[in-house]
C-alpha cells in the first residue's frame, strides 16, 4: 500500500510538471507548432485557415498539409487563453496527462493487476520523451492519446460487454487517424490485429460489425480530402524512396527487383535504428544537440534492464494478451521506418506504448527480485532518482539554452516589441533568415508575427506576393540586402544580428533580441532622427 501511495504521488508530480513553464521549455513555438497555432487562430476568427480555405480537413502547412486535429484541438484553448505559448501547448499537456491515466486503466483491464497498472503509468509519467512530447503542441502526442484510449475502450467493451465502450473505442481509433500521419497505417494495423487476436468473440457480436462500419464511415472525409490533395500531401512526399542516398541508389539500379531490394533494405535499416536499445533508452528523446553526451531515451536509462527482462517475462502478467503487445512492439516503429529523413522521434512516438507495457512488466519482476536486498534496492532507486534529476536539470535548464535557435527563437520577442510600437511605423520589413552568417535558416516570421500581434486574419488570407517574399498589412517578409535597400523614415527593419547595415544609412538599433544563452539573435533598426 505504501509503494502504491508513493507511486501515485510521483505520477501526480510528473503530471503537474507537464504544465509548468510551458513558455520556457521548449523555448519557443516550433515551426510546426506555429503553423497549427496560426491556422487555429485564423479559423477561430474567420472559419478559414491562413490560405483562405473554409474549415479545412487537411490544412495547408509550411511545405505540406497538416492533419486536422493538429488545428482543431488547440483551437478552443487559443480562443479561451489567447494567442500565447501556454494556450497552444495546453491541450497537449492535458492529453499527455490523460494518456498516463488511461495507460494505467488499460493495464488494469488487461491484467487486473493494480500495481502493474501504477508502475506502467509511472513509467510513462517519468518518460523523458513523453514528458517532452506532452509539453509540445505535437499532433503525434494527440494521436498516441487516442490510440491508448481506443485500445482501453476496446478491451473494456470486450471484457465487460459494454457496447458504448466498443463504439467509443473505434471512434477514438478514427480520431487517431485524424491526428497524425503515422496513424494512417498504424491504427488500421492495430484494429486488424485486435480483430485477429480476439476474433472468436468479435465475430460473434453484431456491435463490432457496427463499430467497424462506423470507423470506416468516419474516415471517408479525410481520405476524400487526401485524394484531392494527392500531389502535395505528406504520404506521397515523405516515403523513404525520397531520401537522397536512396534516390541515388535507385537511379543507379533501375531494375524493379533491385529497386525493391534497395527500399526493403533501407526500411529494415531504419527499423533497426528505431528499435535499438540506445535509441529507446539512451538518446531517442533528442533533447540536446546530438554530440552532447547528456542525452535521454524514450525512457530513463535504468529501465533498459527492466525492458529486456520484461520481453522475456511479459506473458506472466499479460497471459493471453501478451501476443497482442508483442505485435504492437513489432509494428509501432514500422511507419516511421518507411519515411525519409533522419530518425524522427515524433513519428516513432507510438513506440512508447508497447515499450512502457513491457518495461513496466519487467520493472515489477526486477522489483520483486531485489526488494529483499536492501543494497540492490537502494542502488536501483538511487540510479532512478539520479537519472530523473539529470533529466529535470537538462530539460528545464540546458535544453532552452542549447536548442533555442532550432525553435526560431526570437520571432515571438520581435512580435511583442512590434505590438507595443505598431503605430510608430509605416512599414515593418522582416528578414526571413535566422541563425548566423555561418548558416542562415529560413524561418516563418509571417506566421509568428500575426499570431502574437493578433493581426486580423483576413489581411493574412489575401497577401501580396513579392519577388522574394510576401506582404500583408504593414508587413513585408523578405530578405533584406542593405546594398539595394531603399531606407525610409518610419520603416522598421528586422534582421539577424550579424547582418549589419552600412553606417552611411544612419540606421540605429531600436531593439535587440537575445537568445536564452544571451547570444544575440536579431536586431531591429530604424532611421535615426
Amino acid at each position: 500500500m505504501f509503494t502504491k501511495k508513493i507511486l501515485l504521488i510521483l505520477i501526480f508530480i510528473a503530471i503537474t510538471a507537464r504544465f509548468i513553464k510551458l513558455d520556457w521549455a521548449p523555448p519557443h513555438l516550433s515551426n510546426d507548432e506555429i503553423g497549427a497555432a496560426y491556422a487555429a487562430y485564423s479559423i477561430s476568427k474567420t472559419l478559414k485557415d491562413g490560405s483562405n480555405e473554409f474549415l479545412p480537413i487537411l490544412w495547408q502547412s509550411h511545405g505540406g498539409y497538416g492533419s486536422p486535429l493538429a488545428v482543431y484541438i488547440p483551437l478552443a484553448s487559443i480562443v479561451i487563453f489567447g494567442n500565447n505559448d501556454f494556450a497552444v501547448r495546453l491541450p497537449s499537456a492535458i492529453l499527455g496527462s490523460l494518456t498516463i491515466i488511461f495507460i494505467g486503466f488499460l493495464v488494469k483491464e488487461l491484467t487486473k493487476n493494480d500495481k502493474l497498472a501504477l508502475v506502467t503509468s509511472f513509467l510513462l509519467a517519468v518518460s523523458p520523451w513523453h514528458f517532452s512530447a506532452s509539453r509540445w503542441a505535437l499532433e503525434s502526442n494527440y494521436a498516441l492519446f487516442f490510440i491508448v484510449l481506443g485500445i482501453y475502450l476496446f478491451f473494456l467493451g470486450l471484457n465487460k460487454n459494454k457496447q458504448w465502450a466498443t463504439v467509443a473505442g473505434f471512434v477514438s481509433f478514427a480520431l487517431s487517424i485524424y491526428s497524425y500521419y503515422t496513424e494512417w497505417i498504424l491504427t488500421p494495423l492495430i484494429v486488424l490485429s485486435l480483430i485477429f487476436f480476439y476474433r472468436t468473440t468479435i465475430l460473434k457480436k453484431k456491435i463490432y460489425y457496427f463499430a467497424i462500419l462506423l470507423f470506416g464511415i468516419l474516415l471517408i472525409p479525410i481520405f476524400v480530402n487526401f485524394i484531392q490533395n494527392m500531389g502535395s500531401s505528406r504520404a506521397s512526399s515523405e516515403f523513404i524512396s525520397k531520401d537522397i542516398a536512396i534516390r541515388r541508389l535507385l537511379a543507379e539500379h533501375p531494375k524493379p527487383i533491385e529497386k525493391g531490394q534497395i527500399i526493403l533494405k533501407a526500411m529494415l535499416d531504419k527499423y533497426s535504428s528505431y528499435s535499438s536499445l540506445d535509441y529507446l533508452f539512451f538518446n531517442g528523446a533528442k533533447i540536446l544537440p546530438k554530440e552532447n553526451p547528456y542525452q535521454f531515451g524514450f525512457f530513463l536509462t535504468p529501465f533498459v534492464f527492466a525492458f529486456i527482462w520484461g520481453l522475456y517475462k511479459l506473458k506472466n502478467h499479460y497471459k493471453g494478451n501478451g501476443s497482442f503487445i508483442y505485435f504492437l512492439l513489432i509494428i509501432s516503429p514500422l511507419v516511421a521506418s518507411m519515411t525519409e529523413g533522419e530518425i524522427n522521434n515524433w513519428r516513432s512516438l507510438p513506440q512508447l506504448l508497447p515499450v512502457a507495457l513491457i518495461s513496466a512488466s519487467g520493472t515489477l519482476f526486477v522489483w520483486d527480485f531485489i526488494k529483499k536486498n536492501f543494497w540492490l534496492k537502494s542502488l536501483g532507486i538511487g540510479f532512478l532518482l539520479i537519472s530523473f534529476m539529470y533529466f529535470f536539470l537538462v530539460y528545464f535548464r540546458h535544453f532552452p539554452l542549447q536548442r533555442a535557435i532550432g525553435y526560431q527563437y526570437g520571432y515571438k520577442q520581435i512580435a511583442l516589441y512590434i505590438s507595443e510600437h505598431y503605430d510608430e511605423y509605416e512599414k515593418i520589413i522582416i528578414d526571413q533568415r535566422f541563425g548566423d552568417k555561418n548558416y542562415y535558416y529560413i524561418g516563418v516570421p509571417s506566421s509568428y508575427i500575426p499570431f502574437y500581434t493578433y493581426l486580423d486574419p483576413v489581411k493574412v488570407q489575401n497577401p501580396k506576393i513579392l519577388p522574394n517574399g510576401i506582404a500583408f498589412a504593414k508587413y513585408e517578409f523578405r530578405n533584406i540586402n542593405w546594398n539595394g535597400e531603399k531606407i525610409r523614415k518610419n520603416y522598421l527593419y528586422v534582421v539577424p544580428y550579424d547582418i549589419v547595415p552600412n553606417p552611411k544609412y544612419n540606421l540605429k538599433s531600436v531593439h535587440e533580441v537575445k537568445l536564452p544563452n544571451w547570444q544575440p539573435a536579431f536586431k531591429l533598426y530604424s532611421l535615426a532622427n
Partner: protein
Amino acid sequence: MVIATLLLSFSLNIINHGNILIGVLNTLLLFFSIYFYIKFSHQKLSFTRFPQLGSPLAILIGAIPLFTRANDILILFFAIGFCGLILFYLTTRFKKISILIIVVYLLFVSLYASGLINPPFSLQPFLLIINDDWTNLYIAQMQTESMYMPYIIRSLLFNSSAHLYVMLSKMAGLFTLKNLYEALLIANIYPLVKGLTLDLKNWNKSKKLLIFCILLISLSMVVSRSVEITNTFLLLSPFLIYFVLRGLNSVNKIIYLALFVFSIVIATSP
C-alpha cells in the same frame, strides 16, 4: 553435417576473398564456435551430424556472413585464440586461473580489435572515448551553463563520468537488428532469440560465463570512439553461435527457410 557446414563456409570465403588463408581462418573460427557449443552443452563432437540437431537446416550456419566476410587476419587469429582459451576454461580444473587469463587476453586483444593499437605496437590514444572533443566540449559547456550552482555541485554533476554513459549507450547500440543481421543474417536472429529464451528458462550458474564474456567484450570494445562492429562480433562469435545452435532445434523450419530466403534478398541488395 559439421563438415558440410564448414565446407559451405570455406567455399563462400574463397568466393568472397579468393584467399585460402582467410578462408581457413574463418572456417576454423566457425569450427571452434561450433565446438564451444558442443562442449558447453556437454555433447560429443560428431562430424557427420550436429548434436541435438536433426535438421539439415544447420548447414546454413555455414552461410553466416560473420565467418565469410571477415578478412582481418590478425583479428581472426585473436578470435580463434579466444575460442581456444574458452575451451581451455571448459576442460581445465584451474577455473580461476583460466578466467584470469581470459580477462587479460580479452583486454589485450580488444586494444587491437577496437583500433586503439595499430599493429604492431602503435598506440592511437586520440581514439580513446575519453578524448572525444565533442563530449569534453559539452561537459565544459554544461558546467558553464550551471554557474548558478556552487562549483563543487557543478563539477559533481557534469564531469568525465559522462564518458561512461556514452560507453553504455554505445554498448546498447552494438546489438541492433542491423548489426545482428549483417553479422548473422536475419534468419539466424530467430534461433538466436529462441536460444536465449531457452537458456533463460534453464538458467544455471555455468551460464554466467556467457554473460560475463559478452559484457566484458562489449565493454572493452566501446572504449574506442569508433566501435568496430565486425571485430566485436568476431570476438563474440562462440557465444552467438552457441545461442543460434541452441535455438535452431526449436524453430519452425518453414519460417526459418522463409526468413533465410528473405535474408538472401536483403544481403544481396545493391
